[in-house]
């Protein structure tokens, strides 16, 4: 097991190197110079080439691209993610502040997705071809196709403006004001959870149906076991392997969704930071944010792989 983890971590390290290369160079392929974004229109009209070069030097943008990359990696090894070109804040500090907000909403969304998606999928599979199955399948199909930003706007209008049950936007830490935090989190979490819930529902239904056709399940029925016991003991654990894989992949979807959800619900998380960094071509911000998202996704995938062993003892980490 330890050997497997070490191997996976080494593998993850190389993937990360690849990711850093992609993030770094793709950002620089984009047209436009970040220094121009730093200047106001009025300043851009008056700044001399000499001053412009001095500014570039200040941010290390005067050096060849490969040197800039090496400097960035060197900084990362010292825990320094760089400084925002636009607002001169430490990228590391900003990520430290924002990551928990995105993680808080993302985690809640994942929990809800699993808590709703798995039971709904099992019900749908065990009540196959009934009205309940049709209903769950229809909801799942809708959930998987609906655009998150549109859903966010609809939720705001229904729950924030029409019913006036929930705040329209904003974020409060649960440690500062738990109830307000909860009220503010409901709509973004529902938005973030919609697509993963639908995906998990569909995956659970399909893998449960497959397990239900297995001989050992038929044997369990023949033994006279009751349905809940059959589902819990014989079906669920075996049906969960593809579902857990999907949950692992959902971490990526949740981070992707946070980009939209944080913009619509005005949440100062890592998703919004990434969007604004891209729009203003703030290289260090985008690089730092995407790197952290990549690390989180890689770790989530590692956890998923490790969970296979618990779900199916036949899986060996050799």
């Amino acid at each position: 097991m330890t050997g497997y983890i070490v191997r996976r971590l080494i593998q993850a390290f190389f993937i990360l190197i690849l990711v850093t290369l992609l993030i770094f160079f793709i950002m620089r392929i984009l047209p436009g110079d970040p220094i121009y974004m730093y200047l106001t229109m009025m300043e851009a009209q008056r700044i001399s080439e000499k001053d412009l070069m001095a500014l570039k030097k200040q941010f290390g943008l005067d050096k060849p691209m490969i040197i800039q990359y090496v400097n960035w990696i060197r900084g990362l090894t010292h825990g320094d993610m760089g400084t925002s070109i636009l607002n001169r804040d430490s990228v590391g500090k900003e990520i430290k502040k924002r990551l928990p907000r995105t993680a808080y909403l993302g985690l809640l969304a994942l929990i809800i997705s699993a808590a709703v998606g798995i039971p709904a999928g099992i019900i749908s599979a065990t009540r196959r071809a009934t009205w309940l199955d049709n209903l769950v399948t229809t909801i799942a199909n809708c959930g998987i196709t609906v655009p998150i930003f549109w859903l966010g706007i609809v939720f705001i209008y229904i729950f924030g403006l029409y019913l006036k049950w929930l705040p329209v936007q904003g974020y409060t830490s649960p440690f500062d004001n738990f109830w307000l935090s909860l009220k503010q989190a409901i709509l973004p979490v529902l938005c973030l959870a919609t697509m993963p819930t639908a995906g998990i529902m569909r995956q659970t239904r399909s893998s449960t149906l497959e397990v239900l056709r297995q001989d050992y399940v038929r044997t369990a029925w023949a033994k006279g076991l009751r349905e809940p016991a059959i589902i819990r003991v014989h079906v669920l654990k075996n049906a969960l392997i593809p579902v857990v894989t999907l949950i692992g992949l959902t971490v990526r979807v949740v981070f992707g969704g946070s980009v939209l959800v944080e913009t619509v619900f005005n949440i100062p998380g890592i998703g919004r930071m990434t969007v604004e960094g891209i729009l203003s071509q703030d290289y260090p911000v985008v690089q730092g944010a995407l790197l952290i998202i990549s690390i989180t996704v890689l770790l989530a995938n590692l956890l998923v792989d490790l969970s296979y062993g618990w779900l199916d003892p036949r899986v060996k980490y050799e």
Partner: protein
Amino acid sequence: MDKKMKGGLMIKKAFFKGPFLILAVLLILFGAFTLDSKEATKKKEVEQTPGEIQKGGVLKIIYKQGPATPIGWPPETVGDSLIPGTPAFETLLRKYYEGRYEPLLSEGWKIGPDKRSITFYLRKGVKFHDGSDFDAEVVKFNLEQLKASKFYTSELWSSIDIVDSHTVRINLSAYSNAILTNLTSQRAAMASLSAYRKRGLDFMRWNPIGTGPFEFVSFERDVSVKYKRFSAYWQKERPYVEGVEYVFIKDPMTQLASMEAKEAHVLLTDEKKVAFDLKAKGFSVSSYPAGVVVIMPDSANASSPFSDRRVREAIEYAIDREAIVKAKGYGFSEASYQVVPSVSNVFIKGLGRKYNPEKARALLSSAGYKKGIKTKLIYGTMWVDRDEVVMIQNFLKQVGIEVDLELATPGQSVEYRRKGWNGLYCAAVVYFPIHPIQGIEAYIGPRTIEFPSLKRPKDMQAVFDDALSTREFEPRTGQQIVKLIFDDVMVVPLFTSPTFAIATKNVHDAGFHTHSSQRVNWTPERAWLAK
């Protein structure tokens, strides 16, 4: 009249003559230093009726984005970042759109007779939020920081002298009537020297300590900037609200929903659709032109068809600006035929080339482009939207100008502005209501190093220099520049781009769109909220 009476009158005349002369001399002497400021402030501020004013409440203002550059160090604060600093800071003076100046931290000022100096007489008894005094040393320090930051027209300040504890003189190498106007900018606001010495620049950058009506409480990036009432504010009784909070919401739909949900009192936006929707729902909408959207041809490029004035003129006649404004202006934009909006004091009534496709075709034909022209139109989304440029494309197509549209990212837009472009470039000439000519000069004047593809009319700089050199800005000189640009068809004006302050009905005297920069300045000390 008998002799006695005459004698009496003569005695009286002689009696009054001496003191009258002394009084006259005193008046002249006293008047000398306030003459300029008195002249400039002949219209008094509209008095608020104390009986109506209600105290209390926290005024919440939504703006699209939080500050990127420091909010607490005015010389480094630029663009959108200026907005959330306004409650904490004050300038030496204000300038209202109608041309009136208002003394703020200075009680008066005097422009030297040779126009080689401007002397400011500072208000006494003003305190900074940290308890330190506002005096000449503070002003000199702040102005020197401003000069070091290459503030517009500060290159004309040769030195700054402290005359006495509450008098400061800026000595000038040359005069421009934009100097005084520029000192009304939020960037020329006064920050505490004492706090700077004690805490250093890094602290000051994100902790605004000024003399303004509100004290800084907190700043959270992309979330909010909060202020509380400054109890030792120099304008007694003011401010009326207990605090001001800027909330940063990027998405226009969320801004709109947040206003509808009464989560804030004011929304500062450039979104016409949002303003239209909120107006329909009973919100007060104050709008002002932030600029005139124009098409800039690559006229400096000798091989370009647009180097021919007739082709540029043809574009003007080809585009039905009234139709664009009717379709996309939501009642807030106006069709533009000059580089300034019609509210400007340099706007020339009746001047413009109205929609006339026949004339456009004839001009193209006479310029040798009978078969038409193929070119591209580069645009960013800051000033125009896709629908508007598609309409422009269609109008141009009708006269034989085939245009490919190119959407430029913000970074690309700046590069085009800086390095030049081929074809047509859609941008805006920003409108500065307090000094319209300075705005034009700053954006498209011959001295700017931007828009190199744009050919400037001959002698344009000389006309600018004349307009800026008069003691007070004279609209007549500004009109000469507007006419020069029009005659040369230097740019093709399209329509005005408005900026909005949308407020709930209980917000009073906030003073948005009344003075200095339309996107930034307001009167936080006078604002109050009806219960």
